[in-house]
């Protein structure tokens, strides 16, 4: 709760910047529109106005500045426009309606959570394999890295088609793509974490002739907990991004991704921006949940959470 004020401060700073940026970003569109509506604009042709920066144009036409905030199809929507759109689509609709962002949020979130569970599980398993098995250490890591350089949006349609061919449809294909994006940060972080115990901590177990399993549960796993949480926080946002990306090749039917795409394609920037913010807020909330769990866990483990 101590964080509320700092967050508000940072948010306020960003809002201020945003509000200022709206003017130059939207100036050209505003000027074009104003001219069509019969207002006097200098210079008086769109082509000539291209020679000016947004700021320069604003200085020449200060009377147009208020209009930059109310464009119907702005280049950069103003905060109150995004806020109003979000209010309308979050609170102004029944949550089961297709026009409700809550409905679309749930569509995306369900794929996210399933994908995150699969991705994290797989990531931890791989990390354990890499730490405990030399052959895996030396062969898997380079390919895990390579797997992440494959642009998933290019593979996604093929994955969907192939899964579709064996009868897997619905939330699972999306979750698999989401898992594909989230397992990697978990692998990298967990490998590091599982290897973080120092020589003496390891030697102690060797003097007991602890089994590898005991070494895992009693030393490596607890020592890796701070790393695990760092990875989980990155992994959950990666999962969300993955679920959204996966919505395009699955026919963009519902979910945040579908809203973004359709908003973009039909010239409704507010729809896109509202979905974008809703997605980011969802992610921030998820990350917040993990931060909380992290703090509680570390406190219980006696590690002073800073």
């Amino acid at each position, binding site marked *: 709760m101590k964080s509320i004020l700092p967050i508000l401060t940072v948010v306020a700073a960003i809002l201020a910047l945003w509000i200022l940026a709206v003017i130059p970003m939207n100036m*050209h*569109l505003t000027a*074009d*529109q104003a001219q*069509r509506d019969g207002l006097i604009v200098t210079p008086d*042709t*769109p*082509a000539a106005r*291209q020679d000016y920066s947004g700021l320069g144009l604003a200085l020449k036409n200060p009377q147009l500045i208020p209009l930059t905030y109310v464009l*119907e*199809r702005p*280049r950069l929507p103003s905060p109150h426009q995004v806020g109003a759109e979000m209010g309308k689509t979050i609170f102004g609709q029944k949550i089961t*309606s*297709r*026009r*409700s962002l809550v*409905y*679309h949020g749930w569509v995306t979130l369900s794929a996210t959570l399933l994908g995150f569970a699969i991705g994290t599980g797989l990531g931890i398993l791989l990390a354990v394999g890499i730490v405990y098995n030399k052959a895996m250490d030396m062969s898997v890591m380079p390919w895990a890295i390579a797997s992440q350089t494959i642009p998933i*949006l*290019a593979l*996604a*349609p*093929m994955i*969907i*088609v*192939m899964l*579709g*061919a064996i009868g897997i449809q619905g939330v699972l294909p999306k979750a698999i793509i989401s898992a594909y994006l989230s397992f990697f940060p978990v692998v990298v972080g967990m490998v590091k974490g599982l290897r973080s115990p120092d020589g003496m901590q390891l030697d102690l177990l060797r003097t007991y002739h602890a089994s590898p399993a005991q070494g895992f549960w009693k030393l490596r796993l607890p020592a890796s907990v701070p790393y695990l949480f760092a990875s989980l926080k990155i992994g959950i946002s990666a999962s969300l991004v993955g679920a959204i990306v996966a919505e*395009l*090749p*699955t*026919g*963009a*039917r*519902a979910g945040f991704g*579908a*809203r973004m*795409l*359709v*908003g*973009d*394609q*039909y*010239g*409704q920037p507010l*729809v896109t921006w509202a979905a974008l913010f809703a997605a980011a807020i969802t992610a921030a909330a998820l990350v917040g949940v993990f931060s909380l769990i992290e703090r509680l866990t570390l406190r219980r483990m006696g590690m002073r959470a800073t």
Partner: protein
Amino acid sequence: DSHANDVTLQLQWVTQSQFAGYYVAQDQGFYEEEGLNVTILPGGPDIAPPQVLAGGGADVMLNWMPSALAAREKGLPVVNIAQPFKTSGLMLTCWKDTGIESVEDFAGKTIGVWFFGNEYPFLSWMSQVGIPTDGGEEGVTVLKQGFNVDPLLQRQADCISTMTYNEYGQVLDAGVSEDELITFKYEDQGVATLEDGIYALEENLEDPVFVDKMVRFVRASMKGWKWAEENPEAAAGIVLDNDETGAQTEAAQVRMMGEIAKLTAGSNGALDPADYQRTVDTLLAGGSDPVISAAPEGAWTSAITDKALQ
């Protein structure tokens, strides 16, 4: 049984009035009347319908003919079984104040083009009029256009590709008036290629059960199209009902339905061999970077429409 009556249709874009006929047939029970159980899969920016067909994800797809013919050359034998769209809705939309008045003025300009299999008509056209597409003073600079009209509105491009029924309306919605623009319809330039045909895999067409299913499918779909042409507002409403994103607006879909009706108007579903020939000729004229290298064989069949239209 399911093999005899289940049909999965892969659209080539998200749910919109461009596909009204199929949604109407579904909604008005035309498919049901034919004993069919139809699933309509919306498309999207990354969905290549031929790939879905090849992967067994769908029985039939909608596709533009250039893209379908290219797929044939790539070894995926797809066959046009019906052609509900008679005329092409594709055009280039340019700012008038860039000084463009005719095709010759394209030299030195930047033009947004859809790729993903939809670039063929443009490339053939340019090669027919002898304008290089690799930039420079003499040629045009080509941009791969995203799924919106921003490059034009932001003046990053002098011209962009638009469909009469969708993107052009969006340019107008953005407050641009028609007299600020100049448009080049492919239809008017003599380089029109066939759009939105219904395609199936060649091997499936050897199966009489499948053929029978397709006959019923095409018949019901065309019934849907004609219903949509007559009731544009209701058809748009049906499309909206099927839009799961909830982001489409009624005004846009009604307008789109109106424009679409103009493109389907001349067709009863059967492919006109002359249109086919013009499409093939246009593509073969494609110069150094041909879309197809030889006139295709068996790329369409009238067997289905013949039965369906009896």
